[in-house]
C-alpha cells in the first residue's frame, strides 16, 4: 500500500513527471488541471457557467436589454422562446442531435434554436458560435438538468 504523499513524491522525482511540470510552467494554464482543483476555482467555473445561464434565461424570456447587449434580434412578433417553452420545457436538449421533422434534416439543438428564431419568432438567425447561442444553449440544458439522454428520440 502506498499513501498519497509518497505517491506524489515518486512522481515528482521521475524524469517524465519533471518534464511535464517544466512544460506546464512554460505554457501556463495547462498546468492548472494537473493540480487538485481548489474550491475557489470550482466557484469560478460555476459562476462562469451560471452567468451564461442567466444571460440565456433573459434572452429566452424576451429581455430586450440582453438581446441588445449581445447584438441579436430573436423575435419581431412579440413572441419569446419561453412562450411555447416555459422553464424550457419541450425543448428536449437531451434528445438532440436527431432527425427533426420540422426542418426535414438531421439537426442539432443549435439548428433547432435558429429554426425557432426564424420561423415562429420571425427574428434573425444567430451565429451558431455566438455568445447568444452559447447562452441559450446553457440556459436550455441547465433548465433540463436531470433529464436522461435519449439522443435521436422523436
Amino acid at each position: 500500500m502506498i499513501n498519497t504523499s509518497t505517491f506524489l513524491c515518486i512522481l515528482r522525482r521521475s524524469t517524465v513527471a519533471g518534464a511535464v511540470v517544466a512544460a506546464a510552467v512554460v505554457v501556463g494554464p495547462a498546468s492548472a488541471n494537473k493540480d487538485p482543483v481548489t474550491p475557489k476555482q470550482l466557484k469560478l467555473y460555476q459562476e462562469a457557467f451560471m452567468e451564461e445561464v442567466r444571460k440565456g434565461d433573459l434572452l429566452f424570456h424576451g429581455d430586450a436589454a440582453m438581446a441588445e447587449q449581445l447584438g441579436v434580434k430573436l423575435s419581431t412578433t412579440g413572441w419569446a422562446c419561453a412562450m411555447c417553452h416555459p422553464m424550457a420545457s419541450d425543448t428536449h436538449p437531451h434528445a438532440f442531435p436527431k432527425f427533426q421533422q420540422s426542418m426535414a434534416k438531421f439537426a442539432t439543438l443549435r439548428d433547432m434554436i435558429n429554426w425557432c428564431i426564424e420561423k415562429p419568432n420571425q427574428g434573425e438567425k444567430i451565429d451558431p458560435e455566438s455568445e447568444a447561442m452559447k447562452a441559450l444553449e446553457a440556459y436550455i440544458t441547465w433548465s433540463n438538468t436531470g433529464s436522461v439522454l435519449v439522443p435521436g428520440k422523436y
Partner: protein
Amino acid sequence: MSDELDRIRREMHAVLQPPGVRPDDSLQITRRTFIHRSLLFGAASVGQTFAWWPLLNTIDVAHAAEAPFKFAWISDTHLYERSLNTRFVDKVVRAVQEVQAMDPPADFLIFGGDLAQLGKIEELELGVELLKDLKIKKYYIPGEHDWYLDMGKKWGELFGQPNWTFDHKGVRFIGLDTVSRGPDYWTAKKMTPEERMGHMATLDGTVAGAWAGVGREQLDWMQKTLAEWDKSKPIVIFSHNPLYEYYPPWNFWVRDWREVNDVLKPYTKVTNIHGHVHQVLYNEIGSMRSIGMLATSWPWPYAPEGVPKLTKPMIRVDPGDPFDGVGWETVNVNADDKVDVEYIMWGRKEVFVRSPEDHDKSIEEVIQPRIADRQYPWENP
C-alpha cells in the same frame, strides 16, 4: 414528482375524492371531451393511459335543457397591438367568423380571459373591435394578462363586473374572477406598472407567486348565488384558471381550491370550463368536472408533472403552423339534456393523441424554475 407536489396531490385526493365521490352517475362522458372510461374506475399506469377504449358520448348535465342550445367559448387571444403581431389578430378574426357562422347560432359567447397580452388599452380595445363582428350576446371574465398593467381599470370600463351569474334554459351559469387577487409583489420592489405586468405575463416567472385565487368574498358571493339553487340542477362555472390544483408553478390552479370545493360540494352537477392552460384538459374533482379550453394564440405544453389521469392529451403540434394546436370551442346542450364540448382545432382533424409519440411528453424531461428573475442563488451560500 416533487415531494411538495406529491404531498399536495395526496391531500387534494384525500379532501376531494373520498371513496364513492364522483360527478353525478347519471352523467356520461362525451366523445368530444375524450376521457378514458377505464380510468374512471381506478388508477391507471402511464401505459394504460394510451390504451384507449372506445370513446363514449356526451357529458350529460341532466335536467338542463328546456330546449336544446349551444354556446361558444373563445379565450387566450393574447392580442398585441396590431402593428406588432398580425398573426394573433388573424386567429381572432377566424374564430369570430366561425362562431358567427354557427348554424343554428350559439345562444351566447363566453370570453374566457387573456384578451390582451400586456394589458394595454390599445390591446384591450383591439379585442373589443375584433369581437364586435360577433353579433351574439357576449360575457367576459378576466385573465391575468388583462389586469396587471392598470389593475383592471380599463378592463372594468370595457366589460364591467368581472364576476357574474345568469340562468339560461335551466342551467345556472357563473363567471368567476380568479386573477385579480394576486399577492402584492410590486410595491416593496417599487415596480413600474409595466414591470408588474411583465412579471405577471411570464408564465414561468418566479416573482408574481401564487396569484390565482377566488378569494373569500367571492366564495361567499358564489355560495349566496347558489343558496336557492336546487342541489341536483346543473351549474356551469367559467373561470380563467382551473378550479383544482394541476401545476402551481404556472398557476394552473387556484390556491383556494379547498374552499371552492367546500362551496360546491352539495351540488351534484357542476361543470367548470376554464382557459389559461391553452390545452385540452379534463378532470373530475369531487362532484365537479373540469374542462380546459384551447387558446387562439398559442398552445402551452403540458406541465412536466400533474397532468390529470383522466385527460386524454391533445396531439403534439407543429410549431411551424401558427394555426395548429389552437382554436375555439362549442358547447352544445342537447334536447336530451346532454352537454357536449367540441374542440375546434384549426391545424388538425385529429385533436387527440393516438400513440405515445404523439404526446409532447413522450420525451421525459426534468425541468426547473428560471433564475434570471431571482437573485443568484450562488451569491447566498
